């Protein structure tokens, strides 16, 4: 669905062909998977949960258990209250979870199920039992995309668990939808500042773990519920996402913690590239009162050294990028600082802020002939890319058809990576993430050049 203007007009009905987005509950399930002992429960029909599991499994290559309240024909008529109750009971018996995250689907939303009331009833009728926290996020796919489900679920977890303010010296880290490798790297960085922290969500182990000796009902790892409870007493929260920062007050976990629990909030862009990462480190310096550890000063130095060594191969290069809006903004920031122009910045999302945020990180987009495409699908992207003939395409696996069509290298980032191994092990964030991205991008260009060359030199 092509909407070139920033305020999407739906006056013209158009098909979405090869969507560049996923549905809202997928994001919610992913976020809930980052809580220790959690089971996500989709309230709706079986198909949605099975498709979502399949999609996540194909990327993470790990078991992804998502329960479903399994609507039948009758349920749609009489409402899903009973199904919800049975589902919660069965989950408790079979999984003994520490947390249940309920997300709705289009079906339960359309018939108007009152999920908060169902949950309240359940708590009342099971008052004598030791129930895990039950969080609820409303995720109809006809408004929003998977990234909205993701942030909504994080917020719902905070809302369900955090009760008290306080004066702790730990920091809350709200990283957004990034890779398990990124999550591990972020934890390392914050620890190296000597900070205690709560990161939500943390699926770095639940969705990227070692083989098992025995079957785990729920994989190990994730943010413990009692840690989430401590988020109300943190010294500060750091929340990534320039687009997320534009959501109405109170609509993100960070904002909720600030509003209801007075936790100061740093709203930063995804730390991609030197500039955005410097801002992240500055925030950590401010919160910890310590300078950046030597290790990262050196990492940054090596990165800049690499920028210099490789600058000629990327200078003046053009790229088409796509994905979740915040990822696109992060990528644009990074590409801008190495001399690659992101001539097409596309997203299936349509927050209405993409253009402004890209402008913030790369400067005058009109002068640079940068096209911004909100609410885009892959046919739109292919049409424009064919026209613009970028040197590179950067995004997830689903852009492969575009890359193939215009014979351009695809550098895979983000989610989903369905046609390669190691999607969960990619780094995007921090100096280290930038280093990895930079090397991969330069090498993709070199490889193309080498392959296309009639000479085939074995030196650069």
């Amino acid at each position, binding site marked *: 669905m092509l909407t070139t203007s920033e305020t999407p007009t739906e006056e013209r009905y158009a098909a979405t062909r090869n969507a560049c987005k996923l549905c809202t509950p997928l994001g919610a399930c992913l976020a809930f998977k980052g809580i220790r002992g959690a089971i996500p429960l989709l309230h709706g029909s079986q198909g949605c949960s099975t498709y979502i599991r399949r999609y996540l499994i194909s990327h993470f290559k790990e078991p992804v258990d998502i329960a479903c309240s399994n609507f039948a024909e009758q349920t749609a008529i009489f409402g899903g209250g009973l199904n919800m109750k049975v589902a919660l009971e069965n989950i408790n018996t079979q999984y003994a979870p520490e947390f249940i995250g309920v997300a709705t689907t289009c079906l339960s939303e359309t018939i108007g199920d009152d999920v908060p009331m169902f949950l309240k009833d359940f708590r009342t009728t099971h008052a004598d039992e030791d129930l895990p926290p039950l969080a609820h996020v409303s995720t109809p796919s006809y408004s929003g995309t998977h990234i909205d489900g993701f942030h909504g679920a994080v917020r719902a977890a905070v809302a369900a668990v955090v009760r008290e303010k306080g004066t702790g010296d730990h920091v809350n880290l709200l990283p957004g939808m990034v890779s398990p490798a990124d999550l591990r790297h972020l934890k390392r960085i914050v620890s190296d500042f000597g900070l205690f922290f709560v990161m939500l969500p943390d699926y770095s182990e639940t969705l990227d773990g070692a*083989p098992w000796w025995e079957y785990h009902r729920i994989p190990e790892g994730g943010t413990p519920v009692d840690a989430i409870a401590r988020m109300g007493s943190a010294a500060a929260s750091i929340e990534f996402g320039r687009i997320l920062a534009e959501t109405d007050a109170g609509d993100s976990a960070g904002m909720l913690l600030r509003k209801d629990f007075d936790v100061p909030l740093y709203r930063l862009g995804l730390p991609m590239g030197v500039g955005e990462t410097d801002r992240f480190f500055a925030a950590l310096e401010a919160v910890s009162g310590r300078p950046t550890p030597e290790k990262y000063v050196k990492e940054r130095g090596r990165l800049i050294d690499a920028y210099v060594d490789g600058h000629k191969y990327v200078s003046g290069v053009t790229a088409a990028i796509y994905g979740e809006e915040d990822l696109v903004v992060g990528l644009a920031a990074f590409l801008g600082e190495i001399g690659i122009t992101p001539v097409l910045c596309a997203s299936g999302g349509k927050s209405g802020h993409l253009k402004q945020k890209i402008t913030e990180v790369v400067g005058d987009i009109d002068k640079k002939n940068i096209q911004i495409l909100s609410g885009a699908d892959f046919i739109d992207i292919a049409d424009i890319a064919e026209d613009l003939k970028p040197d590179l395409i950067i995004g997830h696996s689903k852009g492969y058809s575009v890359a193939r069509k215009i014979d351009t290298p695809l550098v895979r980032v983000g989610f989903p990576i369905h046609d390669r191994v190691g999607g969960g092990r990619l780094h995007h964030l921090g100096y280290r993430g930038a280093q990895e991205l930079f090397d991969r991008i330069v090498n993709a260009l070199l490889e193309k050049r080498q392959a296309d060359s009639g000479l085939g030199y074995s030196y650069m």
Partner: protein
Amino acid sequence: MTSIPILKERESQIWQKGETPFSITCDKHSLAGAISQRACVFCGSRVVLYPIADAVHLVHGPIGCAAYTWDIRGALSSGPELHRLSFSTDLQERDVIFGGEKKLAAVLGELIDRHRPKAAFVYSTCIVGIIGDDVAAVCRKVEREKGIPVLPVHSEGFKGTKKDGYKAACDALFRIIGTGPINDISPQSINILGEFNIGGEAWIIRKYYERMGVQVVSVMTGDGRVDEIRRAHGAALNVVQCSGSMTQLAQMMEEKYGIPHIRVSYFGIEDMSKALYDVAERFPDNPEIMARTREMVREEIAAIRPELAEFRKDLEGKKAAIYVGGAFKAFSLIKALRHLGMRVILAGSQTGNDEDYEMLRDLCDDGTVIVDDANPLELSKYIIEKDADLVIGGVKERPIAYKMGVGFCDHNHERKIPLAGYVGMRNFAEEVHRSVSSPVWRFAPRRGAKLEKTEVTPC
């Protein structure tokens, strides 16, 4: 280890051979809160119709249902590839409130103009009925305007199981059948039903039949074309694979056009050969057909036998767990695994019926667990308890196997390698062998190698 509890309501859907008298409940709606490996009605319809490559497949509903089924199946086409595109009406909040009919009509028109398909299938997903869209009416209108068949597929996900989706797909196909010319069709002719050309399987099967001297009028739906399907009523026999999905269509065609049908499977040497002989037998007036079939089967088996024997050397005595969509496939797999010297310790399906499970019971050895609509916990419980070396299943079963240090063979629609026919049997053996005989399992905790302390000493 903590033992894994089986939910009370699920106990009747699991049975172990040799213990108690046979009883298994199936055809049951999945239990709320259990993590079923099943999909939905829509998924069933999509599986059946998806390979029709010159039709537009439009998913009417919010984006997810279409996004998750975009180009995920290995169904190949020798020509157009419209089926590999994902089209959705991508309903938005406003459409949900005011209805999606206008959008559906506009989107259909746009897609038909742009892609010039031979037909369009419009899949209703869960919320479509609830917001009150009359999809059939919109389809009729667009059909009149554009002059191609525009077929509603009533596949609201929650209205039944995958099987109902097969039915909805068969209904749509049935509407096209009977609209094409059949004057040039030979009396020795068949339709191949329930074969989806995963990794080119339909091509393999079609070649076999053609080598026998039998004309293949249409394949439904592998490498499918609308014009071929229109002529399907001219065939003398329907050859139906994968009992679940298309037997219904065969029955409908039998009633209306008097075309008899037989059920076959193309997996494994025995079943593949039987599928060819059964067809040859149907044409007794042409004894050359049977003669050619014998000749061909002999040749094909001889060609793969030495390799199979090699694979068998390593696989002898290994144990496999099978969990597939339809039970019919499980029968073939059990036989195929026997050829490789392997034993089946668990057999299950998402959608088997009573008859299927009785047949499974007869085929299995003592101790084999038979399970209907299993969830990941149950599957892993038996994989561990029975100490499987291999799991055969789909994408959702793979990580369960791998986490437990067990080999895996994908036997679902996503795979890219043909496993049907004689070459398919060879590929299957190779796949199984590749996984089971890999040296990596010795590092898996469950495979015994609880990596003992590695010691090194200086010289």
